């Protein structure tokens, strides 16, 4: 009994958007000029477009601009929460160290991220005029959720559950140059100094 009700409620909820009467009625009242130029159904491709910006030539006296390579992989069959652990692992590393860590990591996402990093390194050397392929470090490594899909998971006794197939995207930005030195952890002495400075900054406002 209960599962029939839940099934029909779920179906009505899913098809709620597809009521044709509502759709056609709204189309005739649309204004001539619309502010929304892009619809929500288009896939966002901002990260790929970042690879297309061309900087103007540098003057001879300026410091050399480090090359930045953006790469991503979309719709990886993995959960973005689980992928985050790997992304956080390789965040500030040099590319060789990151590849070594991923090769011996047991997670499924490690293999995917390693492929992405190798692709990005190859792109850097071929297309982006990077001289030494080991001279790259990972500036940004992030994950995002992809499109989820709901499926039925069959249990015993005619019971079912709704399974969520999760996908994720992985974004990486390689920057030329040695990796930045890690920030020294905050000592107690630094914290004490900050506290004393805060006490000294106190002042009275709007008074004589």
């Amino acid at each position, binding site marked *: 009994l209960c599962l029939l009700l839940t099934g029909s409620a779920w179906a009505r909820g899913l098809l709620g958007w597809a009521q044709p009467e509502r759709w056609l009625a709204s189309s005739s009242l649309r204004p001539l000029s619309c502010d929304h130029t892009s619809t929500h159904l288009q896939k966002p491709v901002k990260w790929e477009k970042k690879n297309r910006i061309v900087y103007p030539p*540098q003057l001879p006296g300026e410091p050399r601009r480090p090359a930045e390579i953006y790469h991503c992989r979309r719709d990886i069959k993995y959960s973005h929460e689980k992928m985050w652990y790997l992304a956080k692992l390789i965040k500030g590393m040099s590319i060789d160290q990151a590849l070594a860590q991923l090769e011996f990591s047991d997670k499924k996402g490690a293999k995917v991220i390693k492929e992405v990093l190798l692709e990005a390194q190859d792109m850097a050397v071929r297309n982006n005029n990077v001289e030494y392929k080991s001279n790259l470090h990972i500036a940004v490594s992030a994950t995002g959720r992809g499109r989820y899909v709901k499926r039925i998971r069959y249990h015993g006794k005619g019971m079912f559950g709704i399974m969520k197939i999760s996908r994720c995207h992985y974004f990486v930005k390689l920057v030329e140059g040695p990796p930045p030195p890690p920030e020294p952890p905050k000592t107690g002495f630094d914290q004490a100094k900050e506290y004393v400075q805060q006490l000294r900054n106190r002042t009275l406002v709007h008074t004589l």
Partner: protein
Amino acid sequence: IIDPYVPPEGDARLTSLSKDGLKQRMQKLKQSAASQLAFNKQKLHSLVTERCYPDMVRGNRYKTIRWSFVESLEPPRVVHLRCDSIVNRGNLYGQVTVRMHTRQVLAIYDRFGRLMYGGEQAPKDVLEYVVFERYLVNPYGTWRMHGKIVPEWAPPKDPIIKTVMIPGPTLDPSQEYE
């Protein structure tokens, strides 16, 4: 009225979400993008043949090229002249090879503005044999650049600024090497 103006369909009924409106806006965007490019594609096609155009343009999209012609050291001379029909009989093309000894400045910058090849302050003396082609059947055809002839005795070009790794032979782990 001779050749009356045909307004686009649904002129006053265009909305951004209808198909016609989207198509028109895409066309406008494409036209504006093509005209705002650093070089004019139409003009380049009129100055260079279809065989030469990809050789000139390939790999240039994300690079900045600065080229300037300083002076001509010798007056250009016509060296070689051929005229033949290609593919069909009657498709007459004329090709002329011109020997040019000139001074030029070339500097190629990559995507990030770093110098990849050449230099802006160093003019180079260049001896080139440039081939121009014209479609002779068309009375209004123009002479367009068709290609360049590089002789075997030509001096080697300047090396590029960065170093490139050439992959060596694949080594077999079971065998011993020196």
